[in-house]
């Protein structure tokens, strides 16, 4: 009895196949073309292609997929929570906190690694946690756990941290300033399996919570009053969503930097494909987000090889025009859930 326009089961069959193809195929693509026989053969490997494949490209593709899935799913959750088309995973200041942490690391000029985690990632994650605590605390200051207060607190914290980043850049020398700028563009370079292991649990926890809350996300989409009257513990669900998605986004930003647009546009594309029901939308966002970021990263490391374009630039270059199309040319239904509130 579901609306035919929204019931496209083939999309949810096609997306896993697309994701599998992407995960298996992208490591072969890059500056150096790596033949299948070299990767799985046992013969000589004069160009270290096998090492490049297994130690560099495979973990990088895994990171890209995890980060894309996490950002897209969290963006979808924030758009439902705030009922706002412009909500992104970074709306609540997590990216601002993480960026400030990374900028501080660069400005201090220290260099260390904690087990397999780089110092920049450690600082970025601490910054993300700091922003989460700050936004959470500011929201709790007011009675209840108001979405509007949380949104405004997030925006205020983000702006404040952005100003501090600019101030740090102003105090930095040319090299440090470039390093900070480069980090802010986001990227998946020099990742190893350690980064995959660090990121997987945080994205895993975030996605598990979202999969457990798909009914609640549907109900939040139709408004908080109706959600309460259907039996949703709205403040509790909002708190859980906020904390789980923030840790997930904090982990992604700490490892990859603030990669923009994935978290905003992938949910919109998926909504056009499978409709607004989060029971279909969430898996679609995870798969499409993973595929999208992996393909963007593959393009980032090949279009001007041997140099690399920061993946955040690629996603933004694609995301800007897409968003304009979404605003002016999308088929009816593209932005329906999520009316844009200034």
């Amino acid at each position, binding site marked *: *009895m*579901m*609306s*035919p*326009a*929204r019931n496209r089961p083939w999309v949810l069959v096609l997306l896993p196949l697309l994701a599998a193809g992407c995960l298996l195929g992208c490591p072969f693509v890059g500056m150096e073309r790596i033949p299948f026989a070299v990767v799985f053969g046992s013969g000589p490997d004069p160009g270290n292609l096998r090492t490049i494949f297994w130690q560099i490209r495979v973990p990088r593709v895994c990171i890209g997929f995890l980060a894309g899935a996490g950002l897209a799913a969290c963006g979808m959750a924030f758009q439902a929570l705030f*009922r706002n088309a412009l909500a992104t995973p970074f709306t609540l200041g997590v990216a601002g906190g993480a960026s400030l942490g990374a900028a501080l690391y660069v400005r201090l000029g220290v260099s260390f690694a904690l087990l397999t985690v780089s110092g920049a990632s450690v600082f970025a994650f601490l910054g993300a946690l700091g922003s989460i605590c700050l936004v959470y605390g500011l929201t709790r200051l007011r*009675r*209840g756990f108001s979405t509007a207060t949380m949104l405004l607190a997030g925006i205020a914290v983000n702006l404040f941290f952005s100003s501090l980043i600019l101030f740090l850049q102003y105090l930095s020398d040319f090299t440090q300033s470039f390093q900070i700028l480069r980090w802010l563009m986001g990227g998946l370079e020099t990742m190893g399996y350690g980064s995959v292991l660090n990121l997987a649990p945080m994205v895993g926890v975030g996605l598990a919570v979202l*999969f*457990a*809350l798909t*009914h609640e996300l*549907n*109900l939040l*989409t*139709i*408004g908080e*009053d*109706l959600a*309460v*009257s*259907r*039996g*949703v*513990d709205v403040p509790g669900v909002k708190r859980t969503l906020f904390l789980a998605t923030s840790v997930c986004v904090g982990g992604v930003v700490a490892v990859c930097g603030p990669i923009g647009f994935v978290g905003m546009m992938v949910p919109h594309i998926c*909504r056009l494909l499978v*409709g*607004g*029901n989060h*029971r279909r939308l969430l898996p679609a966002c995870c798969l499409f987000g993973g595929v999208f970021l992996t393909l963007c990263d593959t393009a980032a490391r090949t279009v001007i090889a041997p140099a690399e374009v920061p993946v955040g630039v690629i996603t933004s270059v694609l995301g800007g025009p897409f968003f304009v199309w979404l605003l002016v040319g999308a088929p009816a*239904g593209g932005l*329906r*859930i*999520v*009316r844009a509130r200034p």
Partner: protein
Amino acid sequence: MSTPAVEVQGLSYAIGAARILDGVSFLVEAGSYLSIVGPNGAGKSTLLKCLNRIITGAAGRILIQGRSLADYSQTDLAIQVGYVPQGGADDVPFSVYEFVMMGRYPHLSAFTSPTADDECRVAEALDLAGASSLANRDYGTLSGGEKQRVLIAAALAQDARILLLDEPTTFLDPRHQHDILRLLARLNRDSGVTILAVTHDLNAAALSSDRVLALRGGAVVFHGSPCALMDAAVLRRLYEQEFHFVSHPVNGCSLVVPEAVR
């Protein structure tokens, strides 16, 4: 004597210095139909939202089916009480069927899909609300009257025995108003659903309810039968306006007409 469906004792609610509800007390028998009337800003919608815990922090005591509201989890409360807001959201990206299925939320758990029983209950709710033919439509394409039916169906899908309706016929043309009132009367009479409906339509309240509660300035100024409400002194106290009365040509019930303005 059966347990009242709703019992409110000394309910007060304020926002800052503004007192929205002031010591409201009343009782609604199970299976009865209560209309709540009063001028704008009297606290009618706030009262409904307090009964449903959409608004929290009110002083006083609310009992639902003889049990304190505070003892209910939100899910348990949703199984007892359904809420139909005024108009409802416009930008709902779901089909009618999906929207009504959300009414089954209190019966679902995380990671589970609706069962055959849930689908059966949704079909029944759509049928009861006269909205079966709308199931495949996008919610956003519905007219005001159709939306109202779907909102009622979603509340019925909760299996709620008490329905709270906030101005269910506002913005509807006379035919759709009549359809919705007939639907509510049928649910009340045939299915024994207890109804608490906020309305500005005094005649509809007189013709459809068992009891009427009138609020003014957050306080109860009248609680009694619809016939007793149709009294010049009561209505003057309620609205600070004169009304004229006529008899319904079919059942003889007293109805009001406002003063002529020209």
